């Protein structure tokens, strides 16, 4: 009971601190922007820990964060093997193949307005479908190892990437294209010097959407069959054995990998599209 009261007190206290920081003149500084969400996140973890202990929630329903951290510390080997199997072999290779193919396809259909008018609506439509459902079929075709996971990822990232690249290549004004024409630039010259750089914000938007899709695809595809390693495999078997601390450890790794992957792409974007208004200031 004391722990529950303590949890409520900490929650209210942290909220009061955050409200004070947000209400003070400091709230525009970089320091406040980092501190406030950090305090909020830490408070959530502490309250979680205290409530689980205070209300004596059994570990098979919700383990406290300390138990999850202990599990991560105790089995880095398993987590690393799973990470390599799912994130590197499955998600990353599929991501590269899928985004690369979609990019080349977009360039290929770029010269034909007819194909663009046909492929864009179809691509937009397919991007909204539950493509994850192709996972059982692809696992059947490519076997249970990482190749089938990469295939699922390829199918998942292809259409969002294609649609974004095609839209980006169309994002130049008539004035800019006319200028290239007055320079008597050929198709490839105007593609490399004008239209591809102009398309970069769109392309990176597609790449960023695809990072999340890639990890989701690789993990969910493992629910349909996998070798005895991989994050999806570990999650589904540990859930069956009620080893929830291991499940949460895998989820923490997946969240970390997802954020890092997204962050890496966003960092590259910042370097490539430094000229774009959204990157300035």
């Amino acid at each position, binding site marked *: 009971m004391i722990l529950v009261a303590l949890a409520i007190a900490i929650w209210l206290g942290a909220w009061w601190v955050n409200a004070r*920081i947000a209400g003070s003149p400091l709230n525009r500084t970089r320091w406040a922007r980092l501190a406030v*969400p950090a305090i*909020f996140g830490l408070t959530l973890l502490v309250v979680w820990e205290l409530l689980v202990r205070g209300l004596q929630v059994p570990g098979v329903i919700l383990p406290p964060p300390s138990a999850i951290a202990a599990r991560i510390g105790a089995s880095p080997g398993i987590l690393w093997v799973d990470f390599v199997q799912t994130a590197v072999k499955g998600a990353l290779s599929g991501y590269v193949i899928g985004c690369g193919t979609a990019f080349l396809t977009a360039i290929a259909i770029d010269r034909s307005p007819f194909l663009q008018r046909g492929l864009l609506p*179809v691509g937009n439509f397919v991007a909204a479908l*539950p493509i994850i459902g192709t996972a*059982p079929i692809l696992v*059947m075709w490519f076997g249970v190892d990482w190749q089938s996971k990469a295939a699922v990822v390829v199918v998942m990232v292809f259409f969002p990437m294609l649609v974004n690249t095609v839209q980006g290549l169309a994002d130049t004004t008539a004035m800019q294209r006319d200028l290239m024409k007055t320079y008597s630039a050929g198709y490839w010259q105007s593609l490399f010097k004008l239209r591809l750089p102009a398309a970069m914000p769109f392309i990176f938007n597609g790449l960023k959407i695809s990072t999340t899709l890639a990890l989701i695809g690789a993990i969910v595809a493992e629910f349909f069959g996998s070798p005895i390693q991989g994050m999806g495999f570990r*999650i589904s078997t540990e859930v069956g054995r009620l080893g929830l601390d291991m499940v949460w450890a895998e*989820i923490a790794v*997946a969240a970390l990998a997802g954020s890092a992957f997204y962050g890496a792409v966003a960092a590259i974007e910042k370097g490539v599209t430094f000229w774009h208004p959204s990157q300035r200031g």
Partner: protein
Amino acid sequence: MRTLVPILTVIAAIVAIWYAAAIFMNAQWARDQAARAGTELSVSALVADTWSQDRPRLPAPHQVVAELWDTTVGKKITSKRSLVFHGWITLSATLLGFGIGTGLGILLAVGIVHNRAMDMSVMPWAIASQTIPILAIAPMIIVVLNSVGVQGLLPKAFISAYLSFFPVVVGMVKGLRSPDAMQLDLMRTYSASAGQVFWKLRLPASMPYLFTSLKIGVAASLVGAIVGELPTGAIRGLGARMLSGSYYGQTIQIWSALFAAAIVAAALVGIVGLIQRVTLKRMGMAR
């Protein structure tokens, strides 16, 4: 006409590639069968066989359509083999979750817009959470809720709600912030209260953003409901159809469940789009 012809051409090309791929992928099995029977297959017999196998590696389009027709129109909707029955199980979880997720998402967005502390605390996490493979959490939610005695529709609906929640929060915050300083100043010269600014300016201005997020959210909800059916060994729902199809090698069943899911997704997004068009037209915001 200008867009219809290219779209139909692309779709026709996809179907043609599909038929060709079906020949290619199923040919091995057909040849093995013929060799076992000691007969030689002519090309036309080979093609005919690859398009009509019971358990092909890749079923031909007409086989999938026939199975879809058979399991939707041909069966009673209460039958365990009817796709309408399974589709409804998944759809009801999707809609319940979508409703919960959207409602909570809008409430949180209103809180974020009106409370600076909440904005600074929650918003970075809401954005960061979009980079996290949330679906990985699905099997755990189901097992956890199962062990506290919640079964059936609700666990799946929770996953759907979770997936549609964050797009709605992010879109709605953007929308509620979309009125510019000029419009807010005008409201102040009318000496409007915070409530009046919300109901007469912010909420109407957020509608285009809300509908865009709703389209993303409803598609995500359906994916959530389907994935929620996978790891639990559920026996009902579109996800369960896919899973049992993959266990027993019933490829045509997987493909028909996949197409049923695609049709449901297209219908849901289409309905939201229709409501969007009608609403924005009535509000004079249609483009």
